């Protein structure tokens, strides 16, 4: 899932300065599951913002709503019917959701209430960890199912570096397990440690962010174009 967390309330308050009336839009998918932008979080944030802007003598009227999936137009288009009365949308979706709102409503300012962090998974109660950077060329086949691109700060493809601390912690942050220590342990457990001697060649990063904004076109899913005269 996409994992996000809320921006500091001071930053959000600053964004709302000069706004009279705002529509807060939460999302019922990833950010609801990671407790950053679902119905409950929208309610809590809006209450806090009403109080804070009131105290500052610049009260902002805030309405609340939650859509099922902020990143898809069919789930957000109905919002357009009521946008005339608002100065801005405050999105509690991920960065994709914010941009989908902006794409759909060219005449309305959209403000982000969350920082989108990563693609990841919960690793314990109240803890989420990054698992994928969407490099576009998955190498998990070679690394025992553990991704060094997202989990090693140096993105080593032939690790580990010399900075693994005792017990397999990363020198960059002792809270982070060394990805390559775990790759080694897992491959050892699966009795495929010989594969670690393979030298993986330089990665082709053109499928990653480096190649520009990525796009997938699935002809099989597109509506067939009708020939003239068919209609």
């Amino acid at each position: 899932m996409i994992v996000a967390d809320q921006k500091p309330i001071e930053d959000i308050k600053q964004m709302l300065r000069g706004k009279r009336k705002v529509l807060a839009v939460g999302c019922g998918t990833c950010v609801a599951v990671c407790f950053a932008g679902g119905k409950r979080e929208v309610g809590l944030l809006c209450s806090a913002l009403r109080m804070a802007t009131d105290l500052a003598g610049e009260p902002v009227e805030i309405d609340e709503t939650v859509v099922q999936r902020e990143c898809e137009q069919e789930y957000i288009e109905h919002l357009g019917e009521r946008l005339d009365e608002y100065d801005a949308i405050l999105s509690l979706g991920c960065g994709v959701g914010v941009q989908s709102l902006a794409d759909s409503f060219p005449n309305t300012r959209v403000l982000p209430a969350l920082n989108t962090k990563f693609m990841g998974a919960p690793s314990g109660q109240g803890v989420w960890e990054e698992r994928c950077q969407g490099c576009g060329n998955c190498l998990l086949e070679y690394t025992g199912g553990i991704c060094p691109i997202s989990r090693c700060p140096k993105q080593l493809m032939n690790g580990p570096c010399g900075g693994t601390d005792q017990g397999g912690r990363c020198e960059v942050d002792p809270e982070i397990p060394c990805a390559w220590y775990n790759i080694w342990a897992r491959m050892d457990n699966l009795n495929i440690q010989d594969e670690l001697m393979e030298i993986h060649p330089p990665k082709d990063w053109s499928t990653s962010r480096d190649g520009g904004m990525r796009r997938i076109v699935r002809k099989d899913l597109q509506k067939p174009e009708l020939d003239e005269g068919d209609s």
Partner: protein
Amino acid sequence: MTQQLATENKTTESELKAGSNLERILAAGQFAVTGEIGPPKNFDVEVIHRKVSLLKGYVDAANITDNQTGIVRMSSIGAGILIINQGLEPVIQLTCRDRNRLAMQSDILGAAAHGIKNVLCLSGDHQSFGNHPGAKNVHDLDSMQLMRMLQEMRDKNQFQCGEEIAGGGPPLFIGAAANPFADPVELRPLRLKKKAIAGANFVQTQIIYDMDRFKQYMKKSVDLGVTETVSVLAGVGPLKSAGMARYMRDNVPGMTVPDEIIERMEDAVQGISSEDKKARMAASRAEGIRICIEQIEQLKEVEGVAGIHIMAIEWEEAIKPIVTSAGLYPRPVCDS
């Protein structure tokens, strides 16, 4: 892609890879000595000149660090050119942190044009340890891929993309770093072998204080055949004080400093008044140098060790007494 140790990667007197002084000394079977120069955090040539004057004649080549610990300094290649002009051979450190494959290859061509031959390939300390923690790191290649790229530039006259280097590839003596002590320890000799396969001609290790663990590491590496194709220079570093020993034990990942060494450093200042800081420092440093010399004597006897790499961090004055007392002065001359 070759995944086996290749004997043709071994440097020999008749077939030198680059013909650097360091390579010729190792090819001749002489016990090599390298040192280290950290460039200044400015463009002061005098700092380089002073450090060269302390190392010249006592080491076969000097590593020039590349923004070590992620702190901006004079570039390793720039400082390396100054050092060549002073008559000392550099080992240019090249990290994967700050450059992509375009910059690495162009820097190598520029370095080669200035007569630089020894290159040490490193991942690089993470930028979070340095003075620009908000910097973006590159890591387009890792150190294995960097070594393989340089090997192919040199031996196949080709850029990483496969295009030919018209006029021939640069003569390079390719180095790697190794930490014998970091976890998982069982993997470290295999990792050394992997670096040898990737193209390393020589390896410099992390500073060794735990001689027993290093000997186990070398035994396994020799058994794996690694030292048949690669020259291992064992890292040593004189301790300045017991405090420094404890700091390295507690804060440097994978570094073990045995209690015995820490006790010797503590004992060195016993009986000297805590008021007399100068005398305590002198006694402490003398003991640090003594320990270092004893370690070199032991390392000379370890199978597979082809030389030493002395890291006297911001204490270049220690090089001369260490090399002299360890019986490694004068340095051999191996004519090209």
